[in-house]
């Protein structure tokens, strides 16, 4: 029987089911409801863990680093400026190969100040060496959070579960929350082989000279590539427990007859999914949800895009002066295909601009109109700008 839960509440209760021993967080909109709900579970005695209310996101990430290194399952959550403030620590956590899970309640980056949803925060730390999984709805956020702990602890890599701020975190929907026994059967107690222990002293985070640094980076890169299989397995195995699966690295709607592919990440996929199912020409279109952005699933993407004539990449972020971030990576992946699809790359929904249902038709019309779009912000109304800025 599904329960009516706000996304943040569902995520908080899921985190509790994963039995974290240390939670550290600093409040930032729209992450607040998640950590408030966890704090309440701790206050009510429903979650036995050390909840550390730190003085900054920088310290939030540092506390969970110290905690996970000292042998405890750890959790934090943040968004936007918080992600940027903790970015140095995020690189450090990943470089030290410390397993943990954090939720990024995706939000735009200042300036100009925006508290609303897009994915420029998590995209800006894409090279930190974390696994990044993007969720299309709150049920997926629940299931992905549980999967994330298993992936993190098996790969010794941190996992960022990206959930669109407000759009998902503040949306109440029916949610199937798994039982404690189900989560326990899937997720064994935290065991970190390199945990700090006076009985077996290790030195972590040492100085590495040019004699060893490239090898350390290779090993980290390789670990992320290998994590693809763990992501697939976690999704399959959790589907075995819960009955819900999400396709592993990619979730695909549509079959081989499709000539147009639309690829995106996060909650926009849900809107596209409804639009496609209501559209008469749905068989000509394939929807590709990029669940795993890091590791970037090149082979899986190439396979999914085999036979497509056009591939539209929609993303809620951009690299100013370059264009789409996901678009560029997809383009690079497609360049290895013999009959690569034409790539159309758009940013949409920046700073919380609503992504309407008719985006689907708009995109199909753009493809049908011929030409190719290297990159543009699809929903930007240039009339609002002075002529020299258009």
């Amino acid at each position, binding site marked *: 029987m599904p329960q009516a839960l706000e996304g943040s509440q569902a995520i908080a209760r899921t985190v509790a089911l994963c039995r974290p021993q240390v939670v550290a967080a600093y409040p930032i909109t729209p992450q607040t409801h998640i950590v408030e709900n966890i704090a309440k579970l701790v206050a009510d005695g429903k979650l036995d863990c050390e909840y550390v209310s730190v003085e900054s996101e920088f310290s939030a990430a540092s506390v969970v680093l110290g905690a996970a290194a000292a042998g405890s399952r750890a959790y934090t959550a943040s968004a936007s400026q918080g992600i940027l403030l903790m970015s140095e620590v995020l690189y450090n956590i990943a470089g030290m190969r410390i397993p943990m899970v954090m939720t990024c309640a995706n939000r735009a980056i200042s300036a100009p100040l925006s508290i609303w949803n897009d994915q420029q925060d998590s995209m800006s730390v894409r090279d930190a060496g974390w696994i990044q999984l993007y969720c299309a709805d709150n049920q997926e956020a629940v299931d992905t959070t549980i999967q994330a702990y298993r992936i993190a602890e098996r790969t010794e890599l941190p996992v960022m579960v990206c959930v669109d701020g407000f759009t998902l975190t503040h949306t*109440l929907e029916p949610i199937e929350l798994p039982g404690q026994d189900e989560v326990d059967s899937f997720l064994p107690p935290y065991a970190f082989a390199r945990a700090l222990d006076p009985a077996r002293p290790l030195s972590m985070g040492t100085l590495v000279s040019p004699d060893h640094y490239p090898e350390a980076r290779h090993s980290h890169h390789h670990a992320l590539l290998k994590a693809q299989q763990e992501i697939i397995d976690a999704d399959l195995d959790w589907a075995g427990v819960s009955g819900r699966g999400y396709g592993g690295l990619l979730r695909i709607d549509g079959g081989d007859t499709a000539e147009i592919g639309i690829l995106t990440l996060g909650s926009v996929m849900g809107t596209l999914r409804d639009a496609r199912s209501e559209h008469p020409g749905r068989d000509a279109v394939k929807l590709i949800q990029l669940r795993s952005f890091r590791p970037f699933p090149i082979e899986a993407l190439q396979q999914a895009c085999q036979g497509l004539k056009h591939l539209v990449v929609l993303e809620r972020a951009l690299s100013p002066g370059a264009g789409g971030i996901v678009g560029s990576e997809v383009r690079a992946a497609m360049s290895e295909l013999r009959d690569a699809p034409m790539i159309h790359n758009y940013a949409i929904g920046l700073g919380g601009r609503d992504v309407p249902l008719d985006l689907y038709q708009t995109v199909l019309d753009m493809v049908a109109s011929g030409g190719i779009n290297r990159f543009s912000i699809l929903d930007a109304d240039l009339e609002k700008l002075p002529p020299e800025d258009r």
Partner: protein
Amino acid sequence: MIEIRIHGRGGQGNVVAAYLLATAAIDEGRFGQAFPAFGAERRGAPVVAFVRIAERKLHRHNQVLHPAFLVIQDEALLHVPGVLDGLKPGGRVLVNSSHNSELLSEQYGQQFFALPADSLSKEYLGRPLPNTALLAAFLTLTEVLPTEALNKALRDRFRGTLLDNNLRLVQEVATRVPAGIWEDSFHATGT
């Protein structure tokens, strides 16, 4: 599927109203979805929340642009540009007002139902918190869900005297408001 847009002011329980309505739908075995169009607004500023109720799971997370119903918690918001925008043809407006429904309908060119939710909530809850009364009226007018589903959602969220007062308020509104007169419009406007 029906889509509802709720207008209110910060502090009036606008988001709670949306959540209660979607929760009532989910408790009845339907799909329900509710979310605010959050701003950085403080108490008293105009706020908007959206509700979808459907027979099957919806995946969309876009804002409701063409609601079948508007619920307006403060009649002064009727003067705010855009509040009545996008209402579907045949759509209805439920407003917290002590004015006459026919007069309002005539004035704004839409079908209104006015409920004096402020005075009702003052009487039952001790303060002008119109959301429960408006939800009870909405469910009674449309019969989209039984008012008992709202009671259950209230029980999930509130306790003690506050809950009892809210439940009594629901009962009072359900007896005051004509039942099912908007049922047609909800079928007409549903997709």
